[in-house]
């Protein structure tokens, strides 16, 4: 049993944290979030140079990380500065590309170097959280596939150069079999994107596919067998956003602690009030619980019990993380 990171990973995390603190101050962040693309091409390529994207992928993909702990430490640091650069979208797309038996090195070069951004378009207006629910269709036409349907709330879908789209090549809406992934250029004919900001400062897009034609080479993995890949992508993404939440939670607690020490009412710092002290104590205890759940999920990301630990993390962050965030507002 060992709860210390390797020296390399610790250095990576420290470097990421320093970059976020120094290059991504909150007003800059709001500026970037409010921009049309919702990202900073300049900072994105700097972060790529620092290896923050490469750390999300293993050596087979040309990266130098890719383990659950690598993903967790990077996203925790991103969360501490509410970074809105398209890490999540590219992690999801890259994880999906790993399912391809073909040579995907060119794609990973483009992702890891930051030259191109990718996105993952799976959710649909009617799918909610049911991963097998895919109405979008892909029908064979000679050597091509023709895609029709709608994808909902695709993170960074409006600015991505390449989009991995899930579509049904057989079966009914919620069948487990019959889902296939395709790599579609962001500017493909018949793809209509409506981009918009999200409530947390990201950008996303609703994407309509009207007779979008792609060759069979753009298929990722075996025909009709993509649900397992979608589940893997979702597990990696869930770990990433929960680790991101942990970083944000640390900030909430630190900011609230500072406020309790400095804000004076009734002649004393409000942190002197026991009712607030006890709530703060519970917040700090739950923070440790969340950190432990992130460790558990990261450590089991490639095991058979991955889904239990990832779901446990999501559930705990949903409860405890929200409690901490709401209390942080209330105590301010």
């Amino acid at each position, binding site marked *: 049993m060992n709860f210390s990171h390797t020296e390399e990973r610790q250095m990576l995390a420290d470097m990421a944290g320093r970059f976020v603190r120094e290059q991504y101050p909150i007003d800059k962040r709001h500026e970037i979030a409010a921009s049309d693309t919702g990202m900073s091409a300049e900072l994105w390529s700097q972060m790529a140079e620092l290896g923050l994207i490469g750390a999300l992928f293993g050596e087979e993909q040309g990266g130098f990380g890719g383990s659950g702990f690598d993903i967790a430490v990077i996203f925790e640091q991103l969360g501490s500065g509410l970074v809105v650069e398209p890490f999540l979208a590219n992690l999801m797309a890259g994880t999906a590309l790993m399912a391809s038996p073909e040579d995907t090195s060119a794609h990973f070069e483009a992702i890891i170097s930051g030259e191109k951004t990718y996105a993952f378009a799976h959710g649909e207006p009617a799918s909610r959280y049911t991963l097998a629910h895919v109405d979008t269709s892909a029908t064979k036409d000679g050597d091509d596939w023709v895609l029709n349907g709608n994808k909902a709330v695709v993170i960074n879908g409006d600015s991505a150069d390449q989009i991995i789209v899930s579509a049904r090549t057989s079966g009914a809406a919620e069948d487990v079999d019959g889902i296939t992934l395709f790599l579609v250029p962001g500017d493909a004919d018949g793809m209509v994107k409506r981009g918009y*900001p999200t409530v947390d400062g990201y950008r996303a897009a609703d994407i309509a596919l009207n007779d979008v034609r792609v060759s069979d080479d753009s298929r990722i993995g075996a025909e009709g067998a993509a649900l397992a890949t979608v589940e893997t992508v979702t597990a990696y993404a869930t770990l990433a956003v929960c680790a991101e939440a942990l970083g944000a939670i640390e900030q909430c607690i630190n900011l609230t602690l500072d406020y309790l020490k400095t804000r004076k009412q009734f002649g004393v710092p409000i942190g002197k009030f026991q009712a607030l002290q006890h709530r703060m104590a519970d917040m700090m205890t739950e923070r440790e619980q969340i950190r432990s759940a992130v460790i558990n999920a990261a450590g089991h990301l490639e095991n058979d019990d991955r889904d239990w630990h990832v779901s446990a993390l999501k559930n705990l962050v949903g409860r405890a993380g929200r409690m901490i965030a709401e209390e942080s507002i209330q105590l301010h």
Partner: protein
Amino acid sequence: MDLNYTPEEQAFQAEIRSFMQANVPAATADKVKHHKRLTKQDMDEWHAILNSAGYLAGHWPEQFGGKGWNAIQRAIFDEELTAAHGPRVVPFGLNMLAPVLMAFGSPEQQQHYLPRILDGTDWWCQGYSEPGAGSDLASLKMSAERQGDHYILNGQKTWTTLGQHANWIFCLVRTQKEGKPQEGISFILVDMDTSGVEVRPIILLEGTHEVNEVWFTDVKVPAENLVGEENKGWTYAKYLLVHERSGIAGVGDALAGIEHLKHIANDQQKDGKPLAADPFFAARLSEIEIDLSAMRTTNLRIMQAAADGAPAGPEVSMLKVKGTVLRQSINDLTRRALGPYAMPFVSEALEQGYNEPPIGPDYANSIAKDYFNHRKTSIYGGSNEIQRNIISKMMMGL
């Protein structure tokens, strides 16, 4: 014991209901229903409609132009107003300043200001909080120095709701630095056109202009604008806090929120069935409805006691805490009900005249914004922590 309204109360309810059905402007009701932003014109129009019908100040005593409604009648009025998606009446002049003027204002002040509140001549805002004086309101610093027959005001107020629409502001100011902080505070009325008054908008994360800072630099205010006695302002402000029982629980809002939530839950599909049919969602919704059903009766019990002349006690604080937490839980569950479409947020879409098609369902855009925005309700108007202090002090004598 009788949980039904008396015949008189039922008649009153029917009267208000038919009035609302006939008189809430359709466009305004649509904005309220979809949580869009109201313009000043919307609010002025509604104010005028209620005033011409004599309902605006129904709770005022008759000698001041009201109908002398009791607390139960007010509760009925509030429920019917929100049920018809009527906008809440802007309370600053009508429900916050007016009672103070009636109790402590001079006859001249009453005759001058009260009618102008009713006919909409004056839009009032509240000058209480300061950057350094929130929960500890008595520590406020904004100064008012007597010079001849004027006061000279200097300082800053903040979180001034809808101050951008107001032409008058009632302020708590410091007229004496010695002694207990509470004893040096006065209650004064300020024409915002006076030179030296500056309103600076505070734009919320969501992009809404709802609150403001109001800065005062050597603002010259006639001495006759002082309400009651100098250095008695704290008493007047507390009088207001304790006597303003109605509506604090927000039962009407909560009922409307539940209705909206049910509409969404019946529209949202989960695995081919309406979300409302999902047992976990249904259980969450039921628990909120159970708490609301109890709180509605708690509220009516307290309003009944008030109508019977009982002095206000810690129940008001209980309603504030329970009411805000309950409405926040409705906002939260509504956000959950949306699923992924809780994420998109286009601030412009809340403005009048936005004509793009909605992203996702037409009810989606404002939901997450409301969840975040309404975190304020457990903080403003005396934070829930202050309310718990009041409850324990009054009930424990500690």
